[in-house]
């Protein structure tokens, strides 16, 4: 059978020999689809990670133009181009044809080896990329939820400012009216006095809600000073102890005496602790024990102060526990709480770069842990 015309025309492209296992040069036979149909032992040795016969491999995509030309344009077109002599593709490869199969005799394997290494590296970076992508996705989700939270807060903030004006002025008028009637009321009008007291309490409640809403949504900038945290905790307790302590509640203080001062806004932190202490008292209508703890807890890379406020009260139902720091979530009866106390507390703690956690068991009690970072200490020496 006469040799095809194009082989004669391009002598260097002509298949030099039949398929040979012993050929010292790597020889691959590929179907025009790019699938490996044969490789000799030299090819096996050179490319140990080339695919099993019949499979495709990304390395082959790295074979110079000729393979992709075959795949993209089909054998007849490539043959026509070769016959025209204009495009010999890559000089380092020779090829021959047997029907739909192409044999590639590889004279210089450097290129292919480099491609194999590149593929392997690409594989590795793909794996890394996938991991990174997963992490980024995770970060994105958490940022997104933070953003949503921030957006909510900003919306509540605007709303709260509006409410402050629209509600506090009428409240001021109502309270002034009550004040006026109080003074006009005669001592024998006991019921009138009682009604006025109830109205006044209602005004206070409404005022507290607006205040808390403002605190929660537009936290004022902190005025940080080095302060003994234990002292702040105790002063918060002192503010309400007289009103709230009953004979049935025992208060235990376990405050480490030599705590390093922390940089805090004393007034705001006192407010945060106050909310937690009031909650603890209110959770123990039948008595119990309130424990306040403050201690240092430092590891190699972080120095922290820990405060714990623990009660032996009624506890918080499990399904509510995850939500207690959200605004308007309350376990209290109307009038006892606005549902904003813990939200405000968390805002204050987070403003101090701290964290707050709550553990609770129904019927057993609740423990709130506040962790505040201490400023990093300068290391001396070299």
């Amino acid at each position: 059978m006469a040799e095809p015309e194009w082989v004669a025309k391009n002598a260097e492209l002509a298949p030099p020999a039949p398929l040979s296992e012993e050929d010292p040069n790597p020889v691959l036979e590929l179907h025009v689809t790019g699938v490996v149909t044969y490789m000799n032992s030299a090819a096996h040795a050179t490319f140990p990670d080339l695919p099993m016969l019949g499979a495709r491999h990304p390395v082959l995509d790295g074979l110079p133009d000729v393979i992709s030309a075959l795949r993209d344009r089909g054998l007849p077109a490539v043959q026509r181009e070769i016959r025209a002599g204009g495009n010999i593709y890559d000089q380092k490869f020779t090829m021959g044809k047997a029907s739909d199969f192409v044999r590639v005799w590889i004279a210089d394997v450097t290129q292919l080896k480099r491609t194999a290494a590149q593929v392997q590296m690409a594989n590795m970076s793909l794996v890394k990329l996938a991991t990174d992508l997963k992490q980024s996705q995770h970060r994105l989700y958490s940022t997104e939820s933070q953003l949503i939270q921030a957006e909510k807060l900003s919306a509540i903030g605007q709303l709260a400012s509006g409410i402050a004006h629209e509600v506090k002025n009428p409240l001021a008028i109502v309270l002034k009216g009550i004040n006026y009637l109080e003074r006009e009321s005669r001592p024998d009008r006991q019921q009138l006095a009682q009604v006025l007291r109830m109205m006044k309490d209602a005004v206070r409640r409404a005022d507290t809600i607006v205040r808390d809403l403002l605190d929660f949504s537009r936290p004022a900038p902190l005025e940080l000073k080095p302060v003994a945290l234990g002292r702040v905790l105790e002063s918060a307790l002192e503010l309400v102890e007289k009103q709230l302590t009953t004979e049935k509640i025992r208060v235990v203080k376990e405050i480490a005496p030599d705590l390093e001062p922390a940089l805090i806004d004393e007034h705001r932190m006192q407010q945060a602790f106050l909310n937690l202490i009031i909650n603890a008292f209110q959770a123990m209508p039948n008595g119990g024990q309130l424990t306040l703890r403050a201690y240092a807890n430092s590891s190699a890379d972080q120095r922290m102060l820990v405060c714990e406020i623990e009660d032996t009260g009624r506890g918080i139902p499990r399904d509510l526990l995850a939500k207690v720091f959200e605004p308007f979530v309350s376990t209290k009866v109307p009038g006892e709480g606005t549902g904003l106390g813990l939200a405000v507390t968390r805002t204050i703690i987070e403003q101090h770069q701290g964290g707050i956690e709550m553990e609770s068991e129904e019927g057993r009690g609740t423990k709130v842990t506040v962790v505040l970072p201490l400023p990093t200490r300068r290391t001396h020496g070299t």
Partner: protein
Amino acid sequence: MEPKVKILFVDDERDLCQLMKLTLEQNPRYEVTTAFSGEEGWQKAQATRFDLVITDFRMPGMDGAALLRALKAQRPHGPVVLCSVYHDDSATIPPDIRREADGIISKPLDHDALEKTIQDVLDRAGGQLG
């Protein structure tokens, strides 16, 4: 008889002005004049020398800060108390205004607390009042 303490109360909430006058004047020591805007307050302060001016912070037109500045420029020791709906004033009332004011009260303020603030401010200003 001891001369009355003359107070000017400025607020664009007319009902609040009226009730403030009613409640404060339940104490015979106080004589309260009201104004419903900063401009009106300023004009009334030109006609009468008040012992104390209490002004709302946020009002249309001449607001509490502008009135405070104008009054202080005229009589640096005449006491002026700002009245705000915010309890936490550092966020809304600029620090320089806070420093200039003789007191800040937040709405709604119970009468006893209000009287105490008024008395404190008047006591402090006592030395400067002629």
